[in-house]
Each structure stands twice: as structure tokens, then as C-alpha cells.
């Protein structure tokens, strides 16, 4: 069995009195899209920085492609790409030159075909020979992504890659990330757009105050912790809650609406509707909303029902 792409063990980072990473352990396999979620200052960027060589860890072990970075801090980095959170650009060079430089840093000779491909994928072809200082904010963000990917890394870190960008780039990037997964690239993503994580990630990790609270398959997590909210409006007021719905159901004081929260172990929302019909309720309107990753994240952060990783 091949070594995990990334294996972090009991990683600690302290800044004087502040513990930014508090014994984080995490394993990520080949071709996986992993979303690291958490509030600002939770430790997401510090964790990525410790893996990518931007942060000096206090203790713990980081292995990339099976190689301990304490033993060989350079070799594994040939296969890593990073889109940093902060947009940066070198004003002395054009977009194309920036990509050539990036290829060179990673020990790759100039590859014009690859540069053309990545420019096309990120809709930068028209800007290829423009000085980077003349690019708009969105275009600079695209260039940042192109630089992280041009050397075909096996592991890519995207630290809030779509922060402050338009919908079009977000959609383009999502499509490109899916393509990367098909090609076997592993992607670690941090984002504040939770629909992004829900849409893309095979697994999510929730981190807060430097501690990894939970790591779980995205769909399994939603099924386990997610809930469905059912709201039923009645023409004729309902005198009381039907039997068996007292747990999870709340009837409005005027009897004209009912809210029911479906969770694991409770009757399904469709079953509730069936009972209401059977009881002769005068149903006028029905609304349902499935909970999303955002709700689950808030639940875990507030300690409602997170499982340890």
C-alpha cells in the first residue's frame, strides 16, 4: 500500500503564549479533495504553512509522500503547490514569465505547451504577455492559482482560493479542481464558502483553536449530523401535536403551523406528513430545508455533537 500523500502527527505550533496548533494529527490519501474548515484564526493557514515550509513547527512530525520533512525538507516539495491566502505578484515580470520562473524553481525546464494549457484553463491566455502589475485583482488571483499548478504538483494546497473573486472564477476553479482529482492530484482546500467544501470535498476536517475537532467523509457527516427542517402550514388550526411527534415537533400557539426537525432516530419528514394527512389536518403549505455543511460546522464549533477525529 502506498504511503499517504500527507501524514501529520501531533503537530504543535506555539507563538509565545498562543497555541496555534495543538497536537494536530491528520492523514490524507492520494487523489482526495480534503476541505479544512474553521473560523478565522482557527489554525488552518498555520497548518498549511507548517506543511509547506512557511511556518516552523514547535513539535510533531510532518511526512509528505512518506518522507519526514525533518529528514528531507526539500525533496518532497518538488511535488507540492500552494495558492496562498494573500495575493502576491512580482511587478517586474509578465504573466508568462512568472509561470516560467515558477517552473524553474521546481526544477522544470521551460514548457511552453504546459504554460499555454494552464493559461487557457484559468482564462489567462489574453493576459499572457501583460505585466502582472497591470492585472485586475481577479486576474492576479487566477495567476496565483496558475503558479501553484503549472509544475503539475501531486499535492495542492488552496488556502481560500476563491476569497473575493467573482462567481465565474469560482465555478472555473471548481471545475478545474475536479479535473485535478480525476488526474490523481490531491487537493487540500480551506474556504469560507462552505458550499464550496460541500460541493468539492470528499472529506472535511473541522479545526478550532488549533485543535482538529473532527475529520469525516463529507456525505457521511451530513447524514450523521445533518437535519431536515419541515414546516407545515394549516388552513384550520391544529388543536395539538399528533401522537409520536412531540419529540422534534413544535406547534405554533395559534395552531396554524408546525415545525418538525428530522434527525437520525426520529420519524422521517415524509412519515410526519403522512400522519398529519391521516389525522385529517388541513394542510395548506409545506416547506422543507435540508441542513448544510454550514449548520454542521456551527454545531461542531459550538460543541453540540462533534465526534473526535
Amino acid at each position, binding site marked *: 500500500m502506498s504511503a499517504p500523500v500527507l501524514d501529520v502527527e501531533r503537530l504543535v505550533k506555539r*507563538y509565545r503564549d498562543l497555541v496555534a496548533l495543538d497536537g494536530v494529527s491528520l492523514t490524507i490519501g492520494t487523489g482526495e479533495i480534503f476541505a479544512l474548515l474553521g473560523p478565522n484564526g482557527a489554525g488552518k493557514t*498555520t497548518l498549511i*504553512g507548517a506543511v*509547506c*515550509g*512557511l*511556518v*516552523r513547527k514547535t513539535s510533531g512530525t510532518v511526512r509528505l509522500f512518506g518522507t519526514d520533512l525533518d529528514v528531507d525538507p*526539500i*525533496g518532497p*516539495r*518538488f511535488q*507540492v503547490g*500552494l495558492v*496562498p491566502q*494573500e*495575493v*502576491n*505578484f*512580482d*511587478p*517586474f*515580470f509578465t504573466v508568462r514569465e512568472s509561470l516560467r*520562473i*515558477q*517552473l*524553474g*524553481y*521546481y*526544477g*522544470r*525546464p521551460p514548457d511552453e505547451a504546459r504554460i499555454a494549457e494552464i493559461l487557457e484553463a484559468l482564462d489567462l491566455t489574453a493576459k499572457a504577455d501583460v505585466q502582472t502589475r497591470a492585472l485586475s485583482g481577479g486576474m492576479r488571483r487566477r495567476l496565483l492559482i496558475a*503558479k501553484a499548478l503549472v509544475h503539475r504538483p501531486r499535492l495542492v494546497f488552496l488556502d481560500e482560493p476563491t476569497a473575493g473573486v467573482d462567481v465565474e472564477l469560482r465555478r472555473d476553479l471548481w471545475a478545474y479542481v475536479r479535473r485535478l482529482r480525476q488526474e490523481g492530484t490531491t487537493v487540500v482546500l480551506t474556504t469560507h464558502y462552505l458550499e464550496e467544501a460541500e460541493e468539492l470535498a470528499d472529506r472535511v476536517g473541522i479545526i478550532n483553536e488549533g485543535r482538529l475537532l473532527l475529520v469525516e467523509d463529507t456525505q457521511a457527516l451530513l447524514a450523521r449530523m445533518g437535519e431536515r427542517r419541515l414546516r407545515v402550514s394549516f388552513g384550520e388550526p391544529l388543536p395539538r401535536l399528533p401522537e409520536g411527534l412531540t419529540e422534534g415537533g413544535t406547534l405554533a400557539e395559534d395552531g396554524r403551523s408546525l415545525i418538525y426537525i428530522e434527525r437520525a432516530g426520529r420519524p422521517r419528514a415524509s412519515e410526519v406528513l403522512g400522519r398529519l394527512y391521516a389525522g385529517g389536518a388541513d394542510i395548506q403549505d409545506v416547506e422543507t430545508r435540508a441542513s448544510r455543511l454550514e449548520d454542521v460546522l456551527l454545531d461542531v464549533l459550538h460543541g453540540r455533537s462533534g465526534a473526535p477525529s
Partner: protein
Amino acid sequence: MNWLGFRTLLVKEIRRFLRVPGQTVLSPLISTSLYFVVFGVSLGGRMEQVTGQPYLPFIVPGLIFLGLANNAFLNSSSSLFIMKIQGTVVDLLVAPLGPGEILLGFVGGAMVRGLIVGLLTWAVALLFTGLQLAHPGATFAFLVGTSYVFSVLGLIAAMWAEKFEQINFFPTFVMFPLTFLGGVFYSVHQLPEPWHTVSLFNPMVYMVEGLRYGMLGSSIFRPLLGGALLAALAAAATSVNYALLARGYKLKQ
């Protein structure tokens, strides 16, 4: 060793300063040449010979040293410091570049700029003095050694500095006074005590005199002294810089 990575950084550094030649080459060339014209041509006729040399050729090695050392220092210090400010230093830190590749890439680029300015200053001087090159090997060694040492020192300054004010500290408050008091325009043997003795603690004196030996064939100190000092400074500065880069001093959190 990531040779291609090193070469990429080196070429990038050279192209960076060549993109703004007016600022990085022409401007220092003009200011150094002005020293030559003012001190050498205007005042030189009224000066006696210095250590057996007419004044005009006497100041040429010092002025070459001045342009070379300043520009080597400024190139590496400004380049890395600007990368820190702009955030592009992240590209270097994440890339598979070790401390050796980063050090040599920056230093190589800075040496090229220092040597270009130094050699162009020499070319301007040739118009007035004609070619004097007594010891080509020693001249080459002092030019290359000086550019190397000041490039490495510039890189250390860039790592240490966190504000623009700090990056200007070394050139303004350390290099400029030491160079001017380092025998560029006079021989330190002409100074009265205690300034003569004080000057002997200024390392620039030995570097300027070493270059003077190479170009003019005469020096008030044995050239090996200057050579040994340069070698010691190069070794010390390289060790410190390598260790700082390996640790990520003020580059990594």
C-alpha cells in the same frame, strides 16, 4: 542541489535589475563618475602625489570599490526585502530551494550588478587616466571578492529588516561612512593620530588598498592582508547567512 531552481533565481535576479537600468546601473554610475570628475579632475590638479601616484589614478580603485560594493549590497538587500513586503517570498519558501540555492541565486544577481557598475565606473575613468592594470589576477580577485561579500551582507540586512527605514540603515550609517573614511580619496597614512590608528580598524581600508594594489601596483598594505580579510569576511558572512536562511529567520513564522 536544485540547479535549475538556482539558475532560475539567478537569471530572475539579473533580469529584475536590468528591467530598470536607469535606476540600478545608470544612476549609480553617474553619481560615482561625478565623484571622479569633482574630486579627481577638478581638485586633482592641485593635489600632490599620493603614495607615489598622481591623484587622479589614485582615486580610481576606491571609486570602483564604492560603486561595486554599494550596488552589490543594494541589489540583494532591496530584492529580498521587496519580496518580503510584497509577499512573493512565499514562492521561494514553498519551492524546493534550499538555503544554498537561495543564497547563491540572490548573491549571484547582486554580484553581476555590482560588477557592471564597477566596471562601467572603470570605463569612465579610462577616458581620463588611460588603462592601468598592474596585477590582473589580484584586481579580478578583489573585484569578485568585494562584490561577493557585500552581496551576502545585503542579503543578511534584508532578512533582518522589517521596515524601509531599517533597510536603509546599513548603506547610510555603516557602509557610506566606512567607505568614505576607508581611503577612497586619501591614503590613511596621511592622517594624523589618532585617526590613522582608528582607520586601521576599518575593513574597507584593506579592500580599497587591495584593489589599488591590483590596478596601480602599489599599496600601503600587503595585498594578502586585504585578501585574507575579504576571505574571512566572506566565510563569516556566508556561514551566518546560510544559517539564517536555513532557519528561515524573519522569513518563516
